[in-house]
C-alpha cells in the first residue's frame, strides 16, 4: 500500500495536467458544434467532395456531422490520441524511471518482492488514468448538454464510446511497459510514448486509406474507432478481443521480464 500511495502522489500533477488538457480539447471541439450544425447540409455536401483518402484518414467516412454523436465521434478521435500518449507515457516510465533516476537500488533493497512492486505501480498508474477517464466522461456529457441546442442524441451510444476508454488506456499502458522492459535502458520516455501513440494512429489512418490491410488490425485506434461505435451502436467485437489479448500478453510478459531483470547499477 505504501508504494501505491507514493507512486500515486508522484504522478498526481501529471494526471491533473492531462485531465485538464483533454477536457479543454473536448470543450473546444464541442463548442463548435452549434455553428457546424447550422450549416450541416452544406457541410455534409462539402465532405462528400473531399477526397476519399482524407476522410478515411480521419475516420470520417459515412460520418454525419449534423448529428450530435456524429460530430462528437470526430472530436473523440483527438481525445483518443491524447489518452494514448498519456497512457503510453505512464507505461514507459513505470519501471524505467527508477532506473533512469537511479532510485531502483533504494526501492529494490527494501523488503518487498518485484511482483508486489509492479502490481502497486500498475494500480497507481491505473488510478491516475481512471481519474482522467472520469474527467473525460464528465466533460463529454456536460459539454454536449451545454452545446447541443435542441438536438437529441442516443445516450447509450455515448456511454458505449466512453466505456471503450479503459481498455484503450490499458493497451497503451501495458504495451509501453513491456517495451520498456524489453529494451536495456529507456533514456527518455516522451519519444517512445509519442512513437507508440502516433505510430498506432498512423497505422489506423493509413491502413484505411490503403484499403484491405491486415496491419491496421493491431492498432486500438481501429479496434475502438469512434465512428464505427456510433454508427453501429456496438463494438467491433473481434477487434476488441485483439486489444484484450495484447493487454493480457503484455501484462504477463511484463511480470516475467521484471522479476528476472538485472537492475543496472549507478556507476
Amino acid at each position, binding site marked *: 500500500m*505504501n508504494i501505491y500511495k*507514493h507512486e500515486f502522489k*508522484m504522478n498526481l500533477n501529471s494526471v491533473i495536467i492531462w485531465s485538464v488538457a483533454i477536457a479543454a480539447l473536448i470543450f473546444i471541439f464541442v463548442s463548435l458544434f452549434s455553428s457546424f450544425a447550422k450549416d450541416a447540409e452544406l457541410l455534409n455536401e462539402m465532405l462528400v467532395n473531399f477526397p476519399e483518402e482524407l476522410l478515411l484518414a480521419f475516420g470520417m467516412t459515412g460520418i454525419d456531422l449534423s448529428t450530435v454523436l456524429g460530430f462528437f465521434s470526430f472530436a473523440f478521435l483527438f481525445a483518443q490520441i491524447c489518452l494514448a500518449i498519456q497512457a503510453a507515457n505512464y507505461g514507459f516510465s513505470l519501471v524505467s524511471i527508477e532506473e533512469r*533516476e*537511479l*532510485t*531502483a*537500488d*533504494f526501492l*529494490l*533493497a*527494501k*523488503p*518487498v*518482492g518485484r511482483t*508486489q512492486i509492479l502490481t502497486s505501480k500498475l494500480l497507481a498508474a491505473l488510478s491516475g488514468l481512471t481519474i482522467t477517464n472520469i474527467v473525460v466522461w464528465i466533460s463529454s456529457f456536460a459539454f454536449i448538454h451545454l452545446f447541443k441546442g435542441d438536438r437529441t442524441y442516443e445516450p447509450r451510444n455515448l456511454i458505449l464510446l466512453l466505456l471503450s476508454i479503459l481498455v484503450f488506456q490499458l493497451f497503451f499502458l501495458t504495451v509501453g511497459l513491456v517495451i520498456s522492459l524489453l529494451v536495456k535502458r529507456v533514456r527518455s520516455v516522451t519519444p517512445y510514448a509519442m512513437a507508440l501513440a502516433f505510430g498506432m494512429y498512423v497505422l489506423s489512418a493509413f491502413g484505411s486509406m490503403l484499403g484491405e490491410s491486415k496491419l491496421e488490425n493491431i492498432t486500438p485506434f481501429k479496434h475502438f474507432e469512434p465512428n464505427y461505435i456510433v454508427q453501429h451502436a456496438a463494438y467491433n467485437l473481434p477487434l476488441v478481443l485483439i486489444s484484450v489479448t495484447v493487454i493480457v500478453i503484455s501484462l504477463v510478459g511484463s511480470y516475467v521480464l521484471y522479476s*528476472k531483470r*538485472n*537492475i543496472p*547499477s*549507478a*556507476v
Partner: protein
Amino acid sequence: MSVIEVNNLTKYYGKALGIEDVSFQVDEGEIFGFIGPNGAGKSTTIRLLLSLIYPSSGSATIFGKDCIQYGPELRQDIGYLPSEVFYYERMKVIDLLKYSASFYQKDCTQRLYELAEIMELDLKRRIDDLSYGNKKKVGIVQGLLHQPKLLFLDEPTSGLDPLMQRKFFKLIREENQRGVTVFFSSHILGEVQRMCNRVAIIKEGSIINIQDIKTLQHDNYKKIRVAAPALDEKQFEFEGVSNLEKNNGTIRFFYKGDINQITRKISEIEVSDVTIEEPTLEEIFMHYYE
C-alpha cells in the same frame, strides 16, 4: 553461525565478467572487509546478495536462507548503503525517510530522529537541494533506521568530511557491538584496517585472499630498511626478499620467511640504522595487485 555464505557465485554481464567463482563466509557479529580497486566486482557481489541482479551460476544464503527465494523476507533485517546515493529528488528528506521506514514491520520513528540528530541531517530540506555529502547522510540514516541485523556498506565514506566519517565509524562500531554483522566494501585500506576483523581481497572478479586482518599484517611480510656506509644490494638478493630498492645508501625491501635468517644477514655488515616494521595494508595490497 555464518550470516552470509557465498558459494561459487559467478556473474557475467553478457560476455563481460562481473565476478567469477566467488566463495566466502561472513560470521555473525564480525565486520568483514571487502577490498579491491574500482571494477573488481565489489558492488556486483553486494548487488547479487541483495538480488538486485541475478547470478549466472552459484548461490548465496543470508541467515541460512537463499538470498533470491527469500529475498523480501531477508531484507527486513538488512540495511544497505549504496556507493552512489540517489533518491526521489522532489521529496523532502523527512518524507523520504518516512517512506523508507514504511517498508519495515517495526516502528522506526524514534531511531529515525536519533540517527538524523547524530548525522546532523536537516530533515526539512528537499533532496534535490542537498549536497552530495548530505545525500550520503540521508543514505546512512535510511540504511540504519530499521535497526538491521546485517549491514551492507558499499564505499560508505566517499563524500563525507573527516568529522562525519569519524561519527559514521563510531555509529557502525556501536551497531556492531549490539551484534550487527557488517559487510564493508571499500578501496580505502586505512578504514578497512581500522574497522574490520577479516578481509577478503578481490581482483578482477575473483577473490585472491581471505584473511584475518592481524594475520595478514603479522605473518606475512616485514618491511625492512637498512642504512649502511658501504652497501651492496646484491647481499640481500635471496629467497624471501622482494621489492628491493636502493637509494642514498639505504636499501628497502619486503621480507617473508624466517626472521632469524635476515637478522643474521644484517649483523654481518656494518650498519648505521635498521628498522623492521609491519607493512601497512596498503603495501600488502599493492603486492597482491602487482
